[in-house]
């Protein structure tokens, strides 16, 4: 039997938020203020509302930033709300966001926390 251990995080959700290029920092900051711990931002190109806005669409950048944030299920609503307001997503063309429930996640978890909180997984592994 291997001695290596993997600690699995449960009750995690993924919040994805797509905003115009340059706006991601504000949204991430807002999310971190209410408990989000980290964020991944990547560049993307999007279409949709820009076309249906006609000439006004020119004011909207085609280039987007997509933000991925993993949040604890208990915090989803608070973070979701803050990000929505920080990104001004109630304005046409500003962006879109959604939450995806995740089955599990894994990353580095400080040792003492593992000792305090981890429960053995009952399953085929052990």
């Amino acid at each position: 039997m291997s001695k290596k251990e993997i600690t699995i995080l449960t009750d995690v959700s993924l919040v994805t938020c797509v905003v115009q290029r340059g706006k991601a920092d504000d949204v991430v900051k807002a999310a971190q203020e209410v408990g989000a711990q980290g964020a991944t931002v990547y560049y993307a190109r999007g279409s949709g509302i820009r076309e249906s806005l006609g000439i006004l669409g020119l004011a909207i950048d085609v280039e987007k930033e997509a933000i991925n944030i993993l949040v604890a299920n208990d915090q989803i609503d608070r973070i979701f709300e803050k990000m929505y307001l920080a990104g001004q997503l109630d304005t046409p063309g500003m962006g879109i966001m959604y939450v995806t429930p995740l089955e599990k996640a894994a990353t580095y978890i400080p040792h003492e926390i593992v000792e305090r909180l981890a429960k053995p997984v009952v399953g085929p592994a052990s």
Partner: protein
Amino acid sequence: MKKEIRFGDFVREVVVHQQQISYNDLAPAVEINEHGEETIEATRRYKMRSVDLYRILKPYVNIRLMEQVKAVVPLALYLVLFQVLILRQGITDSWLISGGMISVIIGLMFFMEGLKVGLMPFGESIGTTLPAKSKLPVVMIIAFILGIGVTFAEPAIGALKAAGSIVDVNQAPYLYAMLNIYANTMVLMVGIGVGLAAVLGTLRFLYGWSLKPLVYLTLVPTIALTIYFQSIPELSTILGLAWDCGAVTTGPVTVPLVLSLGIGIAAAAGKGNSSLSGFGIVMLASLFPIIAVMLLALYVSSVISPAEIITIANNTVNDNAILPWYERTPGLEVVLGIRAIVPLVLFLIFVMVVVLREKINKKLDIAFGITLCVLGMIIFNVGLSYGLAKLGGQSGGLVPSAFTHIDVVLSSPLYTFATGFFVALLFAWFLGFGATLAEPALNALGMTVQNLTNGAFRKSMLMYAVSLGVGTGISLGVVKIVFNIPIAYLLVPGYLIAAILTYFSTEEFVNIAWDSAGVTTGPVTVPLVLAMGLGFGKAVGAVEGFGILSMASIGPIIFVLLTGLYIQWRIKRRHEIEDKEPEIEHEEGLPI
């Protein structure tokens, strides 16, 4: 009184209210039509509240507006503060000038955005597809015509025409003729110069020619013509104008459009890898127009005599009583704006559709961009004559009051000649230095250069070298006007020094230095400095006030070349020390 609140109610109050809509209801339904094909019901146009419009447009406009505000306001403030604090003169027509400045800012904002949305996509797609689809001669012809087109579209070129009305026909008949009777021909000649530069610059990309021989080859005829012109008194008045034309051409339209074409051609030929391929065109585009304008002056002097020009000039002054609508203020600017942009656009569309047989994508966006461009040009032209030219002319005309007597200022000279002249020089120096340091294009060039030289030529170093060069150049230009020194006496030695320095410099620094001059002359600086020089010249009674811009071009070339040589020397010395170091260690090791 005790009050109770259920925690659940509290939470509901604090938290943002949520409503639900099923996406099933929102998404367009898929229907099957009579042919059995799936069709999607047409997307609805959203009805926008005004707050939505405001929220979309505010950040969009804000960024673009602030860019221009940063370019215009500090410069204008500097002139105004200098005039009020040092010269103790109020600003006449202050409301008109403020209005003019606002329209410069708005005009430039529209123009730049229109350029980005409407014209640049053409430039990019022509640059990438043209070399692949057409033969080299066709490409060269198109590059040539494009060079002419972009010159007419350059916003600062209007400033030259505006300057024409100030020239005194009796003192400098040929200068007057060039700026008034032959104004459009002159712009065309400048355009031909830029066109030739575009062709030659592109060939340079293709065959990887070194810039040094090109520098020598263009300098020889330019300087020879300059010396010839200087020897003939009637023609010598043209020199300042001719050399200033070179500085005017390298603005926000020419540089990106011509460069994108050149880089596209070099990339299609598989030679776009050279890190320096973007350089060189700007330098050619600022020297060729000088030759072209001098050649035109030669032609003008052969067909028309000074006496004839004076008669023509006097006649036109009499005709000025009633001008047709297209030569009066709002109409004139509209006509100028349309004439500047539309031919270029038509040519670009012609190349796209007829030569390349490419479809034009995003017609709506491009039409919008072109409209913005024309609109911006019109507003900018209005601001040019009522804001930039007026303010520049006013402060230029008042600065001499610091050291000499002029009629407008009663208490002049305000200071003793030496102090006052020093103040005026300092004013000119800081104007050039500050305006250049704030130029966004210089910042961009600095970044490129820092990357190209692997950090040997630091960004700040280049920016300071160029700004010092412009400041010194403008001060020398002021000296030229005050003491009425023929411009050739300053330019010929200046370019000779530059040529000698070029001989000793490496290819990289030659490229950077000769292009750095073109970057500094933006659409705000050019009209302001031009008008200032003319006002200055008028106040001290000089024949013509041109030449300051050309001094501002040669200054940075020399300064950047010198900085380049210093860096070369420092690198060499470091290598020498590194070579010696092992020996030193060896010696230290011996006694043990």
